[in-house]
């Protein structure tokens, strides 16, 4: 196989990043890869900027992605797509939820939200895929599935079939939320197909 890669998840505490990165990890394991994932819990979770780092390959040593070596970044919030720019390289793909969550300095009127923030990435020639995950989640009937919309959008950049993800989602979300999550996954997948 020989393939290996690193996926950086970034966003704001409470956006469901951990579940999304779990689904991705299970999908990679199902495909036979070794994997490691780093998370940070505790104080950093209270509405702050959060990341999860997922590395996969034949054999994974370090659980941390090296700067300059994230192949895919899944950003759950627009500004958080740019905060970890030093982790990206020219061939990276950045999948961005276009949702904006105001940080305290913006919410309290001390500064404004950097509206054209994604220009910093596109100017470098890095591929950016925009996903209106919040709106798509609302369309399927549950705004809290925005994270699974993002999983759908990322899924086309990895070799596993949709059925692998669908099986994992079905097994890992409560039965009453299964259909809406599968729809969210399909909606996200359609964006990047």
């Amino acid at each position, binding site marked *: *196989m020989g393939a290996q890669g690193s996926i950086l998840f970034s966003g*704001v*505490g409470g956006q469901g990043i951990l579940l999304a990165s*779990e689904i991705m*990890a*299970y999908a990679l*394991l*199902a*495909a*036979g890869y*070794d*994997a*490691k*994932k*780093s*998370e*940070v*819990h*505790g*104080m*950093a*979770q*209270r*509405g*702050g*900027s959060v990341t999860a780092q997922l590395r996969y390959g034949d054999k*994974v*040593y*370090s*659980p*941390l992605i*090296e*700067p*300059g070596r994230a192949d895919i970044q899944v950003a759950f919030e627009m*500004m*958080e797509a*740019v*905060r970890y*720019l*030093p982790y*990206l*390289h020219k061939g990276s793909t950045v999948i961005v939820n276009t949702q904006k969550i*105001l*940080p*305290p*300095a*913006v*919410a*309290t*009127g001390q*500064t*404004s*939200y*950097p509206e054209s*923030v994604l220009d*910093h990435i596109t100017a*470098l020639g890095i591929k950016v895929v925009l996903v209106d995950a919040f709106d798509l989640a609302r369309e399927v009937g549950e*705004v809290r599935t925005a994270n699974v919309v993002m999983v759908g959008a990322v899924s086309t950049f990895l070799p596993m079939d949709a059925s692998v993800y669908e099986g994992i989602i079905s097994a890992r979300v409560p039965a009453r939320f299964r259909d809406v999550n599968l729809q969210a996954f399909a909606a996200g997948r359609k964006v990047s197909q």
Partner: protein
Amino acid sequence: MTERTDPLWMSGNEAIALAAYEAGVKVASGYPGTPSTEILENLSRYEGVYTEWAPNEKVGLEVAIGASFAGVRALATMKHVGLNVAADPLFTASYTGVRGGLVVIVADDPEMHSSQNEQDSRNYAFAAKLPMLEPSDPAEAKELLKLAFAISEEYDTPVLFRITTRIAHVKGVITKGEMLSSSVTPGIEKMPAKFVMLPGNARARRVVVEERMRLLREMAENAPYNVVEMGDSRRGFITSSVSYLYVKAAFPEAKVLKLGMCWPLPEQMIRDFANSVDQLYVVEELDPFLELHIKAMGIACHGKDLIPNQGELNTAIVRKSIDPTSVAELFAPVALPMRPPNMCAGCPHRGIFYNLSRMKVFVSGDIGCYTLGFLPPLSAMDSCVCMGASVGIAHGMAKALGDDAKGKIVSVIGDSTFIHTGLSGLINTVYNGSSSLLIILDNRITAMTGQQNNPASGYSIKGEAANAIDLEALCRAVGVKHVDVVNPHDINACRKVLDKALECDEVSVVIARAPCVLIPEMKKAANIPYRTQVASCTGCMACVRLGCPAISWNPVSPEKAKSLGYKEKQKGFALINEVQCNGCGQCRALCKFDAIVRQEA
């Protein structure tokens, strides 16, 4: 591709819990602390293991020592600063040794992701004369923990088991193992020469400790987890813990001595390894622990002359430190508004800190979610040192300043932290008489570490009904005469009580009681959010200054202001995000223009 039918995908903490279960642990106690908390949380879900949250790490370790004396395998868990609290029983348990296997897990937090310092707990192994094991990832943690119990019983010693954030909170592939059990028979065994550490007995045990460490040093030379990995001998690395993984990723070709036990060290093995390589590098996070002891053997090596002694390491840091020519060119970071953690929408602490931010007082703070009261816009905390310190520090300031401190010193502590070690501070304040005000932020839960029950919650670790401490009665019992209970969401009423308490000539306690919005009962309860009547907003920003994540400021141009029916000079309006609002009503109390109203139920 290898077929993997049902891989166990677990964090280090989940893997350790499974290992404790498989090792036959019968009693486990600890106090929550990031990054150690999930070990006991997960272990509490296994059948046949007694688990509990103790009021602090010292009690937790003492419970584990008792279980070991009774002949069962026992576990104590804590974060690095918790081991300071538990250091007293630890150092003497080193002398008593064990009956049932006893393992003390300590989780260090290099980089201080969620801690007030980044001490290196390996120094405790040296100081307390105890063996310490150090896994590098979740799979190894699981194997090593089971070995730790065998070592404990074979060598009659507590075993320290050190993990870090990047082991505790890293997920990896795990395999289930066989169930083990202790060969010790549980029961009451009177062994005074071993268990009663008064000087005469302790002197005899002191000799036993030295002999034990000698045997452990011998054992370390052939231990299966101290391993030489052959490779290019121009660079040789001695490393342990997660640093081993960074070395393997940065220098996959190099020869490596990987230590699974960082104390005591296998001197002959290290000497042979050093002789077999051209350049010897010791790669470790935080203190030069291995390096110092290797240099003390008279072996020359590189270590902290190249590798940082602060913060976490990673592959790039290890590579760059050893080989500065290898630096990769990276995209420059972009300056963005910071996104620090914040108290939740509807957090009861916010109401107290809003009031404190408007009072001319020194706020002696403590460890918990409420430490976030330090951050703008409230900026209402002036010191924070360690668990329980708020009360003693306030008393010390009051004594130092005498009358000048009257009405100006407030200490703030959470319910769990108060029970942890704040109570003894309050006893001192009463006994030695100072007039500082103590606010107990009673949100019924240990919140910061992820909502663990505590002795004031009324529930056990398993969520079963338990005694709930009556904090008012407790404060009165230690001699506090002035105890008030307030609802912190009621900002205006709260301010009156705080002002009155500050005028008091004796110590006074205000208990600010409202549950954490993240506890299951609160999540299940019907939430009636508030909303903004935008037309009534005058842009005074009173609500914005709460710093609630559900309230945002929306600037408007003079034209837009006019079109909204505002005065032309109105700079903007505040808006409540009704999805995020938890209905606490603190902002409603601050709005003088009735622009904030409750949704119809």
